[in-house]
């Protein structure tokens, strides 16, 4: 038996364990139970095998083996496409859609997780070959910890203050605090909205946050997450009952209007706060040179 069998096997196991750690079904209900998971575990297995096998190949001076990894890269770019296509299709039949920014964020996350698996498998195998199994176990734990940090990302509560406000009408105009949301023509709809609606104001903590929450995709992500977590008082054929987020042009605050089935204010604030800040929505105008001068 080759001397590399155990290091490679160990690297593969470390990679798969890493993938399992990053694969958790939470309130977003994605990936869905079992079948969706099997796809990702299988891809994680391939990724870890590629990462682990590359090391002995390089040690044996098969330098061209590195081209292996380019195949892996194109393979996992395909994963991103797959996720994007699936989610975009599903988004059409959601009562409150995810929005393309959120979908793109999820798709990128799925692709990058596979690279982290390759990294874990590779590092663990190298450490196993160079030292011994105990060092490799430590390396695996460190890699999983790093993966967890890298996959964490920011939350909305880090960049805004969230405050509950009762929605109200001025004439036909629906307002959350002093932010205009929409015009509702029918009195019975207005009654329903006052009965079931809840309003929140997101106050940006700094100038960067102001630009980030102005992003339409970020706002849609918040609405989607709240609607998933608390339910939504809505059906097809009732387009007036739609959760909306509008912006105050004066100071960049965002008014969130939702119609939850579970009217728990604290829970709603928690869910809004825990919405991820989407990578594609983050803006950093203060990093610009002119700002610093």
């Amino acid at each position, binding site marked *: 038996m080759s001397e590399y069998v155990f290091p490679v096997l160990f690297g593969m196991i470390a990679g798969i364990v890493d993938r399992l750690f990053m694969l958790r079904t939470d309130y977003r209900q994605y990936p869905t139970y079992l079948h969706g998971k099997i796809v990702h575990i299988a891809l994680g297995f391939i990724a870890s095998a590629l990462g682990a096998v590359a090391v002995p190949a390089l040690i044996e001076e098969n330098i061209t083996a590195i081209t292996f990894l380019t195949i892996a890269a194109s393979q996992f770019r395909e994963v991103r496409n797959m996720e994007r296509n699936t989610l975009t299709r599903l988004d059409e039949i959601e009562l409150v859609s995810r929005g393309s920014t959120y979908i793109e964020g999820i798709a990128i996350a799925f692709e990058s997780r596979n690279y982290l698996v390759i990294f874990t498998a590779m590092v663990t195998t190298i450490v196993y070959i160079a030292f011994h199994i105990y060092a490799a176990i430590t390396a695996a734990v460190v890699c999983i910890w790093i993966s967890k940090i890298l996959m964490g990302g920011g939350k909305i509560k880090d960049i805004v203050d969230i405050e509950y406000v009762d929605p109200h009408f001025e004439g*036909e105009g629906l307002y959350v605090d002093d932010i205009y949301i929409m015009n*509702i023509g*029918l009195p019975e709809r207005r009654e329903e909205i006052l009965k079931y609606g809840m309003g929140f104001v997101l106050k940006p903590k700094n100038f960067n946050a102001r630009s980030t929450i102005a992003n339409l995709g970020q706002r849609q992500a918040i609405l989607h997450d709240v609607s998933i977590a608390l339910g939504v008082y809505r059906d097809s054929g009732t*387009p007036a009952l739609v959760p909306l987020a509008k912006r105050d042009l004066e100071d960049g605050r965002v008014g969130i209007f939702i119609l939850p089935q579970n009217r728990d204010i604290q829970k709603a604030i928690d869910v809004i706060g825990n919405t991820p800040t989407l990578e594609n929505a983050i803006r950093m105008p203060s990093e610009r040179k002119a700002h610093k001068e």
Partner: protein
Amino acid sequence: MSSVEKMILAVITTNPKKAPSGIAVFHCESREEMYKIGANLEAILDGIAHSLTDELMIVVKH
């Protein structure tokens, strides 16, 4: 590529003088009738009934 995102599907009014041309207009006797027709049209057309003035409503597809 540009596409029309919003569209007025119907107009409901109690004042025929205020109704635009070139679109389906529903003339009503009273505001109650206007609201009733508005609620029905909202459900049928999958649009939102918006009120422009006291005597004029539009159903818009968003």
